Structure formats: C-alpha cells, structure tokens
C-alpha cells in the first residue's frame, strides 16, 4: 500500500505535539466538559465534541450527545479540519463527497450537519477540533455569531490544554528536583562512609549499594555482581533480590555480562523485548526493567551494579546517571581495598575524585596539619579546595591553597584546628556542626583521615537551619522564663539576654518610652563582653530621626547608621556607643506603644525577615507576660486589702460581742466565742498565703493548734496537701474544738499528755480523706452527758459537714476518726 501524499493526520510533528500535551486516554475533566456543553447550546445542536485526531483514531476528551469515547479515522469528519485555516462547515454530510460514505452518516446515528473549529497550538499544529453536530442538515450553516462563539470556545479548549500541560510540567520539575536532592544526599553519605571505612571490601560494597538504592527510589532490588572467571557472581543484594546472593550469571548471553564486556552503562526499558537479557532469569528475578553500570578500575571491569524493577519503564536516564556515579564511588572504594595495584591506578582514582569534587555542591577540602616545635598540631594548611568551598565560605578558592586556616580566617575557633588534628591523630572520622564566628556561618560535615598529615573534609553550610532552630529554642526558653518570673524587670532582663545571644547581637535591652515618645528609659540591658551598658535615660533626638517609626507603631530597622537616611547626617552619637545597626521593636500595653525592645550590632548587618519576626514574637510575648504580672500584682494587692479588712471586721465583731456580753456572768462562754473567732481567722491567714485559692493542710492545723498549746504537744503524721478554702475553715473549727476539749479534760490537761494527728487518703470508688485524733498520756475520756454544747456539735459535724465522725471515749483518752470525700477536701480543678 503506497501513500502518494502524506496526510495531515500522519504528520510526525503534529503527532509529537499531541503526545506532548499528554491528554490522550485521560479521564474526563470538568473544564472541557463545560466547554462542549456551551458549544452545543451556542450552536443549538444535540452533539458537541472535543476531538483529538491521533494517527489511527480520533479520541474525545469531552463529549455531549455522543456515546463512544473514540472512533477510527473512517468515522472521523474532524480529520478534515486539520487542513482548514478556520471553521470547517458541511451543511449536509450526505451531499459532500468526503463524508457521504462515512459510517456515521450512512448508519447510526445518521449525522447530517457538521461544524468544527480547529484546535491550533501556539506553534500552529492542529490537534483536532471542537465540533458541533446535528442530525438534520442545516443548509444555512452556523450564523455569524454562532461561528464566532465556536471559534472562541475552541481557543478556550486550547487554553485548557496549555494550562494542563504547564501544571504537569511543574509537577515533573518538582519531582525531579526532589530526586536530585535525595540522590545528592545519598552520594555524599556514601562517599563519606566509604572514606571512613578502612578497606573492608564487603562493607564498602554494602555502603555503596545502600546509597544507590536510596538515590534511585524506583529500584525495587539491587545487586553488585563481581566478575569471577567467566561468570558474574551476585556479591551484595538488596530489596527484591535478597536471597539471590551467590547467584552466578554467565558473562556471555546476559545483560550484565554485556555491560561488563563493553564497559558501558545500559538502561533496560523492558526485559520482555530486550535482546540481551538471559530469558530464564527474567522470571526468576522478577526483572522487567533495570539500570546497569560497570564497576571499573583503570580500564579493567571488576563487576556490575544493577538496580531493577518488576515494572517496565521504571527508570529514567537520570537514574542511569546515578548508577554510573555510584559505580564510580565504588571504584574509589575498591582502590582503597587493593593498594598494591600501584600508583597508576591511584592516580586515575585521584583524577576521578578531583572531577567528582569539582562538580559537587558540597564544599570539599584537603588539609595538611601544621605542628609546632613540640609536635603539637597548631594549625593546618589548605592543600586543596573545590569550587563549592569558595561559595560556602565566601573566600576566593584560588587564594587559599598553601595558606593556613589561621591566615585565611583569623580568630577562628580553636575547635576547627583541634578536631581535625584529632582525626589525623586517631584516624577516627568526625562529624561536626559548628559556627565560624567571625563570618557568622554554620557548617555541618564530616572529616576523615587521608594519611599521617592530611585529612579531607566534606561539608555544607547550614546557617539558615541552625539559626531557625536557635530562634525556636529561644522562644521556648523565653516562654518558660516569662512564665516563671514574677517581676517586669526580671522578665525584660531575661528576654534581653535570650535575644542577644540568639541573634548574635552585641547588645539587647528593653526601654520604656515616655508618653510624648521623646525619651526612652533603658532597663538593665544585655551586652557582649566589652560593650558598654546603655541602661538609663536617652533622648531619641540625640541620635537622629528615630521617633518616626515608633509614632507609626512600626519597628525601627537600621542596617547601617552611616548610610540610613534617618541617621547618616550625624551617625557619631550612635557610633560612639558601638551601634552600627539597630532594631527598635515596639512593645504595646493596652494597645499603646509604651516600650521598645532593642537589638544593637557593632557591625553593619542585614536584619533578616526571620530575625525581625523573631523580635516581634519576643516583643509580643513580653507584652503578654508583663500584662500577666501587672494583673497578678493587682490581684495580690486586692487580696491583701481584703484580708486586712476581713480581720479588722472580725475584730470589730469581737468587740461588739464583748461589749454585748459584758453582763454575762459565764465568762468562759465569752472566752470560748473569742477562741472560735480566732480559729476561724487563722484559717484565713493560711488561705491568704495562696491567694485564697487553697491552703496547705499542715499549715492550717498548725495555725489553729498553736493558739491552744505548744506545737510540740502534737505529733503530725501524713502527707501535706492542698485543701480547698471550705475544707480549711471546717478543719480549723473542728481542730479548735478538739484541742479545747483536750486542754480542759483530755491529754493536754496534764503535762505529759500529747495528741497524735494522723491523716491519709483512701483510694477506691469514692476516694476519701481519713483523719485520726488520738490523745495519749492523759486521763480516761468520758462521753459528754446529754446533747453536749456547741463544741460537741461542731465535733460531731465532722469534716466539711459529712457527720462521719467516730468518737471513742476510752481509758487511754479520746480517739476520734473523721472521714470526708476527697472531692470535697481538695481543690476542684475546673
């Protein structure tokens, strides 16, 4: 069959463009569905389609009034649109030579009228059409308005297709970027661990395969096959290949064998159609696709790294690159295993490493320790640094080789020398996360020994991460401190220190602003050693135009006082107090700016938005903390005033009673009244100590009993606990009556008598407090005759009115047991 003229349906560029949109055989989407409905309505037809013309079929992304989701090209009218510059209209399909034999015209559904607008890509390729179809001929065709609507809707279909493609593109990009990060981490870890392993082949191969599996997530199984005679032996296995260790594959007639023989990596897209794969292995290994890379040393192939999947097309060209990269790392590791191979091979490896490290995004350096006369390591010299090192440290790499660390970074922290010296001396690799203070940058990496003088370091800059962590930790610490501290100066001073240290500022403090915002009274500030404190009163006007932003209630942020328009006219007053950069963050109280939180730096610096957000957060917390302290202070004053008034009132009540009862001859009754009043008042004293919220059980007991007798007459036995105000009052009155009786008739009426007071909590369905009062060494007790007086009634009432009072009047003295539900004794937590 020959085709004299290529049809537009077969145009390879057009078909490639169609593939590029990734739209064929996808599920319906509302955006397209809406457009065909609009088209059908606009053109008053029962059928509308978004038809995409493939090389052998037309496929409908959206359709209304038409059931099949695709037809072959014999049934396609849309294919004729491909060659049209604009809308193709066929008023009567039975009359047109192109369509009169179309099966959809001659049979069901007997279509008669067709109008299709081309779906044209920005590059001019027509993918298909947005078409409308009727079952009756329409000799007059579409009206001008309908044709215009159809054209516009076709453009919308195209816009939808473009949008879809753009989103897909972005998702692919994100996936690829994540994969690249993961692969980079895996490579770095593998390199570092291989460098750290001292030449054990299996350990190196283990690390290598683990890294490769991590870098290529599509890999379900992985293997390192080493050449042994005329076969490849499965030496290290992972994932779906676990259990295949020791398997031997012939060098001839297998994919891995071919990779080993040709020393060329290979991407096997689909094992079922692969010409090299060993057929019987495919099923046994669950192999459908794979990437394979040779492990070579100095041109000699030692084995093959294979990563495989049970799914076809699981791997990309990038995965193959990763496999090659890891196989290269193995080469370096294998070299370490066999140093007898001679200098040539080592040299080749050096070249390999150099190439690798030149491309790394991690910084890499080789250092050579410098010793003093006593042999102690005092510095080290740069032997080699890679290009990434320059960017991470901020020094031109070309200028450092041959110079020592202390020459390149004066005042560098001692640890940067000591730790690497330890690595060289002990041979143990070291991991570090540390700051170079003078440049304020943090680095994380690993150092490993190369020989008796030299070491290698591979590292990344982690300043942003460390500083973010420090700010987070600082906020937590600040929250704790603010909660625990009780006075405003303590809080501001704690906040100043935390902020100063966290931001690495040279000074931090808190200043109150006067109502006119002309002066600021700086409280005890935090400073770096050597900085003067600014505590005291300052006028804003003395330092430039600093008030403006505070009047507007926004932070004052100056990166360099010598260039900032607000201070550059005369920066000397600020420079005189070592302020080159500053932030004044407003602190509000009841919505008004009443203070500023201040951070200073003796050097010009850019305050990052994260740092400013941190300061804002500190200022906010301080506002809340200060408000809390003020509220508590006020509460404390009110509590004291209340206690004072209550006691004064009790004294007045006492006086009135005394005067009223003046003529009563039973003075002991008057006295008893006064003692009860006192007992009640003692309970209030104890309650006041905890702001009336609770009282300590022991304190309540002692407060009331010491009114009656020396406390050494009482033995207390029980765990102290918080009790409710009600329980405190009840307990006070109860113990007062018991002690009064003991003084009159019981153990306390004789010199040697004592009272033991024991209490415990009983757990169970209804937890209870049980209190025992036992008199010892006194006369025998006798029950009061009759109903007894008020005192007896109070005792029989028990704790918090439960009436659970068990009184035993025995020869040894009074024994009383009281019981009350714990829920009534303890504080109710709401």
């Amino acid at each position, binding site marked *: 069959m020959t085709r004299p003229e290529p049809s537009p349906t077969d145009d390879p560029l057009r078909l490639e463009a169609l593939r590029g949109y990734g739209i064929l055989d996808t599920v319906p989407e509302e955006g397209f569905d809406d457009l065909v409905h609009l088209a059908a309505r606009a053109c008053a037809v029962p059928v509308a389609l978004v038809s995409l013309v493939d090389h052998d079929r037309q496929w409908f992304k959206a359709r209304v009034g038409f059931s099949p989701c695709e037809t072959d090209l014999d049934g396609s009218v849309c294919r004729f649109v491909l060659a049209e510059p604009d809308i193709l209209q066929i008023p009567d399909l039975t009359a047109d030579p192109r369509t009169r034999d179309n099966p959809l015209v001659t049979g069901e559904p007997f279509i008669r009228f067709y109008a299709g607008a081309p779906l044209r890509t920005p590059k001019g390729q027509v993918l298909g059409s947005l078409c409308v179809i009727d079952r009756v001929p329409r000799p007059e065709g579409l009206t001008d308005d309908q044709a215009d609507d159809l054209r516009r809707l076709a453009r919308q279909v195209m816009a939808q297709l473009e949008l879809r493609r753009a989103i897909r593109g972005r998702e692919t990009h994100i996936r690829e970027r994540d994969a690249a990060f993961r692969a980079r981490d895996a490579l770095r870890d593998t390199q570092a661990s291989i460098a750290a392993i001292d030449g054990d082949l299996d350990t190196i191969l283990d690390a290598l395969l683990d890294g490769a599996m991590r870098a290529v997530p599509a890999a379900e199984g992985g293997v390192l096959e080493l050449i042994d005679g005329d076969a490849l032996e499965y030496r290290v296995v992972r994932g779906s290949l676990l259990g295949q260790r020791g398997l031997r594959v012939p060098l001839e007639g297998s994919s891995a064998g071919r990779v080993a023989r040709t020393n060329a990596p290979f991407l096997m897209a689909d094992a079922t159609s692969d010409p090299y794969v060993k057929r019987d292995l495919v099923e046994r290994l669950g192999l459908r696709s794979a990437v394979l890379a040779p492990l070579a040393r100095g041109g000699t192939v030692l084995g093959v790294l294979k990563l495989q999947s049970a799914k076809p097309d699981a791997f990309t060209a990038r995965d193959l690159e990763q496999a090659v990269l890891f196989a290269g790392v193995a080469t370096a590791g294998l070299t370490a295993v066999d140093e007898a191979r001679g200098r040539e091979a080592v040299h080749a490896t050096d070249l390999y490493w150099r190439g690798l490290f030149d491309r790394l995004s991690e910084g890499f350096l080789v250092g050579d320790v410098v010793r003093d006369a006593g042999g102690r390591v005092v510095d080290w010299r740069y032997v080699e640094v890679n290009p990434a090192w320059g960017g991470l440290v901020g020094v031109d790499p070309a200028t450092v080789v041959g110079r020592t660390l202390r020459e390149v970074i004066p005042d560098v922290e001692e640890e940067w020398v000591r730790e690497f010296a330890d690595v060289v001396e002990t041979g143990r690799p070291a991991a570090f996360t540390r700051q170079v203070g003078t440049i304020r940058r943090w680095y994380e990496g690993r150092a490993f020994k190369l020989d008796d003088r030299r070491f290698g370091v591979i590292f990344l800059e982690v300043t942003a991460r460390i500083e973010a962590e420090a700010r987070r930790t600082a906020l937590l610490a600040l929250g704790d401190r603010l909660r625990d501290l009780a006075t405003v100066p303590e809080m501001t001073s704690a906040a100043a220190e935390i902020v100063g240290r966290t931001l690495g500022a040279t000074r931090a403090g808190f200043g109150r602003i006067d109502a006119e915002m002309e002066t600021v009274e700086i409280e005890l500030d935090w400073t770096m050693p050597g900085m003067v404190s600014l505590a005291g009163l300052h006028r804003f006007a003395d330092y430039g135009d600093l008030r403006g932003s505070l009047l507007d209630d926004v932070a004052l942020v100056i990166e360099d006082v010598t260039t900032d328009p607000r201070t550059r006219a005369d920066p000397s007053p600020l420079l005189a107090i070592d302020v080159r950069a500053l932030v004044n963050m407003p602190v509000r109280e009841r919505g008004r700016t009443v203070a500023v939180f201040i951070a200073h730096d003796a050097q010009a610096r850019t305050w990052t938005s994260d740092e400013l957000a941190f300061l804002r957060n500190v200022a906010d917390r301080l506002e809340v903390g200060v408000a809390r302290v003020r509220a508590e202070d006020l509460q404390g004053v009110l509590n004291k005033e209340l206690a004072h008034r209550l006691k004064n009132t009790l004294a007045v009540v006492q006086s*009135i009673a005394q005067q009223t009862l003046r003529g009563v001859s039973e003075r002991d009754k008057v006295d008893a009244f006064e003692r009860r009043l006192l007992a009640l008042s003692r309970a209030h004293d104890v309650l006041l100590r905890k702001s009336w919220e609770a009282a300590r059980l022991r304190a309540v007991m002692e407060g009331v009993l010491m009114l009656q007798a020396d406390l050494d007459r009482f033995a207390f036995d029980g765990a102290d606990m918080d009790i409710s105000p009600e329980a405190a009052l009840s307990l006070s009155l109860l113990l007062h009556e018991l002690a009064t009786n003991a003084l009159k008739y019981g153990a306390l009426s004789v010199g040697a008598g004592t009272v033991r007071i024991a209490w415990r909590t009983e757990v169970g369905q209804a937890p209870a407090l049980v209190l025992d009062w036992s008199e010892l060494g006194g006369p025998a007790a006798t029950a009061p005759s009759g109903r007894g007086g008020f005192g007896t009634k109070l005792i029989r009432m028990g704790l918090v009115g439960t009436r659970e009072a068990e009184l035993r009047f025995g020869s040894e003295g009074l024994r009383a047991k009281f019981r009350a539900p714990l829920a009534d004794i303890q504080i109710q937590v709401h």
Partner: protein
Amino acid sequence: MTEDNPTGQTLVLVVEDDPILMLSLVGYVEDAGCDAVEATSVAEAIRLLETRSDIRTVFTDLDMRGSTAGMKLALAIRDRWPPIELLMVSSQPWDAAQIPARGVVLGKPFDGRRIVAAIQRFAA
C-alpha cells in the same frame, strides 16, 4: 509622780481611732490589772506623752487612718521615749525588721490571753 493616776496602778496609753475597738482594747488593759489612758489619734497620743511622764506602756493599733500612722507613732516613741514598752495590734503581717526594739505585734481578731499576758509582762 502620780498626776491623774488616782488608783496607783500601772498606766497604759491606748491609741485607737475606732471607738468600738477602743472599748475592747481598754477592756484588755483593765483585765491585765492596769489603768488605761485613751488617745483617739496619733497627735493626741504624742501630746499626752509630752505632758505626762507616768506612762510606761503604749498599746496602739497599727491600722489607723493614714495607714502608716500607727507604726510612725511606735517608731517616734522608741526614738523619743526609749523606756516605754510598745504593744501593737494589726490585721497585717509586719517584718521583724520594721518593728521597734522590744515591741510586740499581735494580730486581729484579738487573742485576749496573749494581749493580757503581754500587758502584764510590761507592767511587771
């Protein structure tokens, strides 16, 4: 010197601006077997102390109008008439450091036994 002290008993100057409380304080002084001289303000108390020399003990409320007036009186007495004993009552706690030497502060409501005991000790 017996001035206005016909009974010859120990004289206690009672300083209290609340008339109801004054009745009680005077009652305690009498229960202790002493005679009371009443002053209803700090100024009056000072005047009395300046005009007579037979007062050995001052019994004052610290919670009088002008919150610190009572304590100021106590300090002034310790300063100007060092031999006079000081018994004070207050509804608030006081630091030992704030109390004049040999002074005793008791709480409110009143613990009659301790007040009487203190007056008797000073009078002895």
